[in-house]
């Protein structure tokens, strides 16, 4: 049953690469006219999802609906109303920015020539449009990629790490552009590692881990209801403490950190922080650290069970080391100031 209020939906999407399962029944519901933040740790299936949504690869099972209509292998014309930036922007390095957009405009949806200058203006590249792309910086290439995605004035934008390589001013400008697009009824689907950026930009968030959706909802509701309390106990007390906290909440709301010995994440409202502490203390377990907050980063880390942290030898654990460079927010400690710190 297709829901016309959704700009994008996936139902039970499955995809394997050989024996490795990339998408394991992914269900997404992206309402029209919002900025949707698509989050997940490295290897969670974000890029695979993007590729399926843009017809670059085909799912093994499940269904995709784009702009209220089914999208299958034979429905490439649905993409005429979609703008996409998948992985890194791709251009002919010897052509100018403008000529690259001209070449892009010749494929897919018919695009009027004047639109090229419009999108160059939007991304702030008009002055350098005649330069060869080989002379562009990473950020300029990214801007040109976004310009390419905007070329056909799409109703739905699919963007993979659009802030990649942009300077702070560029990030702010792009964020405002996306917010503006959403305000005029376009849907912007953004996959990103920059959690703070997504928190500022997105209306709705979907978090995936291991190819499945683990949480989806409006940013406001998620942050209001999905607070996280992190508590540190002696490593030998983690099992006992976890059992106590499960009784206080629910089994799927308590996650011992796989990479930080002694730390346990508990998904409860920050107002229950004292209650968490008291229940441990009554059992004779005294927390040596306690933080609470309800920022997206805390939520993300708790839901996906990942925590990027540096080992003494300087290597990062908890994150797929083959997955490329990490965004600063992935590596940072908890984002918000703790409401209560015991030690």
């Amino acid at each position: 049953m297709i829901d016309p209020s959704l700009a994008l939906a996936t139902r039970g999407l499955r995809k394997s690469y050989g024996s490795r399962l990339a998408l394991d029944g992914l269900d997404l519901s992206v309402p029209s006219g919002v900025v949707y933040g698509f989050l997940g740790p490295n290897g969670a299936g974000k890029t695979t999802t993007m590729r399926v949504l843009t017809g670059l690869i085909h799912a093994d099972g499940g269904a995709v609906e784009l702009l209220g209509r089914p999208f299958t292998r034979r429905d490439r014309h649905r993409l005429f109303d979609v703008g996409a930036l998948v992985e890194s922007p791709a251009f002919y390095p010897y052509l100018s920015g403008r000529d690259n957009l001209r070449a892009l405009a010749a494929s897919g949806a018919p695009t009027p020539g004047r639109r090229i200058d419009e999108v160059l203006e939007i991304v702030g590249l008009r002055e350098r449009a005649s330069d060869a792309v080989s002379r562009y910086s990473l950020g300029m290439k990214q801007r040109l990629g976004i310009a390419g995605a905007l070329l056909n004035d799409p109703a739905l934008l699919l963007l993979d790490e659009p802030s990649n390589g942009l300077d702070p001013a560029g990030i702010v400008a792009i964020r405002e552009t996306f917010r503006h697009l959403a305000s005029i009824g376009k849907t912007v689907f953004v996959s990103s590692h920059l959690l703070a950026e997504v928190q500022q930009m997105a209306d709705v968030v979907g978090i995936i881990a291991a190819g499945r959706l683990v949480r989806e909802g409006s940013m406001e509701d998620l942050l209001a209801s999905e607070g996280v309390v992190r508590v540190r106990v002696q490593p030998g007390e983690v099992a006992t403490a976890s059992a106590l906290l499960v009784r206080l909440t629910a089994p799927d709301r308590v996650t011992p950190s796989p990479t930080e010995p002694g730390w346990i994440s508990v998904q409860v409202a920050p107002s229950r922080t004292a209650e968490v502490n008291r229940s441990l203390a009554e059992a004779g377990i005294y927390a040596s650290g306690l933080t609470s907050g309800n920022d997206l980063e805390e939520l993300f880390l708790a839901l996906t069970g990942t925590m990027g942290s540096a080992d003494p030898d300087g290597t990062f654990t908890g994150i797929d080391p083959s997955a490329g460079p990490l965004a600063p927010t992935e590596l940072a400690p908890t984002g918000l100031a703790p409401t209560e710190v015991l030690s």
Partner: protein
Amino acid sequence: MRLFVSALRKLAPRMATLLTFGLLAGMLVLIDVAVVATRGAVEGGPGRPGNVLALITFPGAYDQILSFILGLGGLFAVIYGAAIAGSEWTWGTLKTAVARGESRSRYLLATFAAIAVVLAVGFLFTALVGVIAAALGASVAGIGLSGMGDRAALEALPEHFLRGWVAITETAALGFAVATLARSQLAGIGVGIAVYFGETFAGLFLPDVVKYMPFHLATAAVGGSTGFAPVPSSSGPVMSTDTALVLVAVWLLASLAVASGFGERAEITG
């Protein structure tokens, strides 16, 4: 049509295009310069082939120029086809077009159609440069230019050009298909060169088989004298130029069918 025009616009300023035809034209000019500069030795030296001056003596120079372009051009064409097809994958530009809803096979075929047109233009340009260089060489060497207007030679030129263009396009299609299958410029270029030289050596042992291979068929289609393969196989069974032309067309279409079929089904990652 807009895809085809766009593909042409992309190919025209490309270094691979300029290099391919610039190199061919430059080598033709250099050969003519060498012939003129050493004409005394050529004419008077014992054991020297007297027909070297045929390179700048019309109307025979027309055939010599075509022979040179088609011979080396076959190798250059396979490299050119592979370079263009491979870059669509390595640069990710095919990915971008597909994500805009473009038909994969239409995109690939439009790109190849543009390659075929560029080859035709480049072929004519190189031949023109060759003719001018030969004419200048003939003037410097004191050889008359009256043969340039030879009616029979001029009347035969269009057919030679057409056959040569089809033959060169076939070898470009081979490189295009291999690079598409491998999603790599280098693989396409490597396999193309390997086939080019491999055919020659295989021709020594398996002439009945090799005569149906792309470079030998290309040689046969243009009359067998152009040396499309590096060492023309004279020992193989004779094939009519028309039969060879049909088989060249079969190779051409089969290569394009393989490339577009693979492009339709391929998973585009990276």
